[in-house]
């Protein structure tokens, strides 16, 4: 946790966090801010930006700004949903596979290997076909496909810490596996996990955008950022700047998430050693 708060104090971390807070706010109040009803078709189609329509209208006469604002929750929260599902399915087996015995480890490894082998988009389409083309089902599909990387990352982190000498020391006191995980392993896996989550959310947002671009998950005419980009592509000749606004939002969110992930990764890992070096005074060079 210290790592995360430390990262938020760096410039990169603070900027990223600010952008994300803005995006979240947008996702919550966006639809309320929309000046026009995003679903109402209008007569003025493909209008350039004007006083009445700040970003113009699309091919059905709908106000672009309203559609983007209204599309915020669908785009952002669905990504969170997918990542959340992936987290639960991936993290718990990831950490426990190191401590619950060989058989359990083997089973989780094989299951995850199987999931990794699934071709991503085809799987999403198949789930949509099977469970119905609605947003939550699509997010479950995305979540399942995100799970293996969460599994691998947390497993790798847990493994690297499971053999630490201080873990052995705790075991020699008679501590249970649960106690060891809680006291020694969890807090060290957490920074890695936060970075992975930030990256996965960024990826998830892109995936959701791609899926809605293809028409999977969110049924039109519900606006989503990816869907808006898709529908506007057909009219690039008339409105070349069409996809710019929704793409900008996607870029800003994904960029901020990646930036935050980098900031956390860069601040983590020195475990107070930097502090101790400063404490020994005047940059004492520990070479001899």
């Amino acid at each position, binding site marked *: 946790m210290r790592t995360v708060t430390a990262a938020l104090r760096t410039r990169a971390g603070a900027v990223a966090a600010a952008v994300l807070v803005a995006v979240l706010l947008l996702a919550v109040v966006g639809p309320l801010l929309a000046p026009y009803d995003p679903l109402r078709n209008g007569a003025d189609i493909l209008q350039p930006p004007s006083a009445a329509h700040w970003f113009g209208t699309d091919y059905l006469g709908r106000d672009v700004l309203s559609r983007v604002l209204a599309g915020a929750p669908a785009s952002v929260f669905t990504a969170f949903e997918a990542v959340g599902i992936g987290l639960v399915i991936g993290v718990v087996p990831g950490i426990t596979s190191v401590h619950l015995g060989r058989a359990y480890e083997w089973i989780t490894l094989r299951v995850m290997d199987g999931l990794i082998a699934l071709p991503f988009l085809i799987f999403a389409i198949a789930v949509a076909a099977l469970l119905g083309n609605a947003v939550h089902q699509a997010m479950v599909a995305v979540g399942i496909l995100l799970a293996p990387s969460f599994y691998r990352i947390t497993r790798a982190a847990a493994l690297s810490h499971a053999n630490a000498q201080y873990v052995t020391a705790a075991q020699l006191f008679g501590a249970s596996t649960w106690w060891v995980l809680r006291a020694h392993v969890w807090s060290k896996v957490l920074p890695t996990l936060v970075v992975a989550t930030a990256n996965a959310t960024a990826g998830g947002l892109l995936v959701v955008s791609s899926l809605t671009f293809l028409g999977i998950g969110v049924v039109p005419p519900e606006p989503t950022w990816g869907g808006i980009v898709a529908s506007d592509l057909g009219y690039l000749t008339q409105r070349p700047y069409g996809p710019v606004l929704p793409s900008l939002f996607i870029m800003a969110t994904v960029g901020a998430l990646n930036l935050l992930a980098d900031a956390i990764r860069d601040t983590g890992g020195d475990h107070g050693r930097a502090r101790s070096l400063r404490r020994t005074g*005047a*940059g*004492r*060079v*520990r*070479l*001899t």
Partner: protein
Amino acid sequence: MSVSPDPATAAREAAEAAGPGAAARETLLSVRGLRVSVADGSEVLHGVDLDVPRGSAVGLVGESGSGKTLTCRAVLGLLPAGVEVTGGEITLDGTELTALPAARRARLRGTDLAAVFQDPASYLNPSIAVGAQLAEVLRVKVGLGRRAARHRAVELLGAMGLRHPEHVSRQYPFELSGGMLQRVLIAMSITAGPRLLIADEATTALDVTVQAEVLELLAELRRDRGLTLVVVSHDLAVISQVCDTVHVFRDGGVVEAGPTRQVLRAPRHPYTRELIDNHERFGIGRVREQRSRS
């Protein structure tokens, strides 16, 4: 088990000795008033003086942070980024080292000046067999052809005391023990026939019987090849076994220096006395003393 230099090196040495005005200097390495500072300006080495006579073994003893390794790195020209020599001079056989451009300095390493350090495995490429790595040095620094280099590499490994050198030369670093790896590194360091070898805590991480063997090897190299040694250690006993003179380092400076026997028998500086006491509190000496008193 003698260690004869290869023909190329022997020829070069003979030529040098016969060169015009090249009277063999008594002092091989001389360090005067060496000062080293770090990036923020604070000084970490405060005017170190060191004289290494040709063919001798000089010991640098002190605890971690005392400046002994820093001195060696300054001599080798291998100070880390942000750390630099801010005063004094280092003279190797008449050549002032600090004034040399980096490229020339680099050429001296291996051919005039060599070093082995504490963790031998980290100085070797883990994915190349040790014989090949040794042969590479022979090709680059001595100019031998491929086959000659491979052959000479096996010879050198044998001369370093490794049993079954042909087999060892085909092994990878992870297959060899610390003592064997250190021998490989010593072999690599003497291929180009340097005049001075710096052994910086070279035996610290080794088992005590292996340490004795490596120290014996160094003594042999000194005897048979006229190699001058600078031995750095935190262990006074190691220094006392190998070195003629000792310099006691503390907090970036030399507090006492002199012939080993003399310094050990009659230390002048209280810190030296403390180091000697530490040794006699716990160790074989203590047991012998207890026995002789009872």
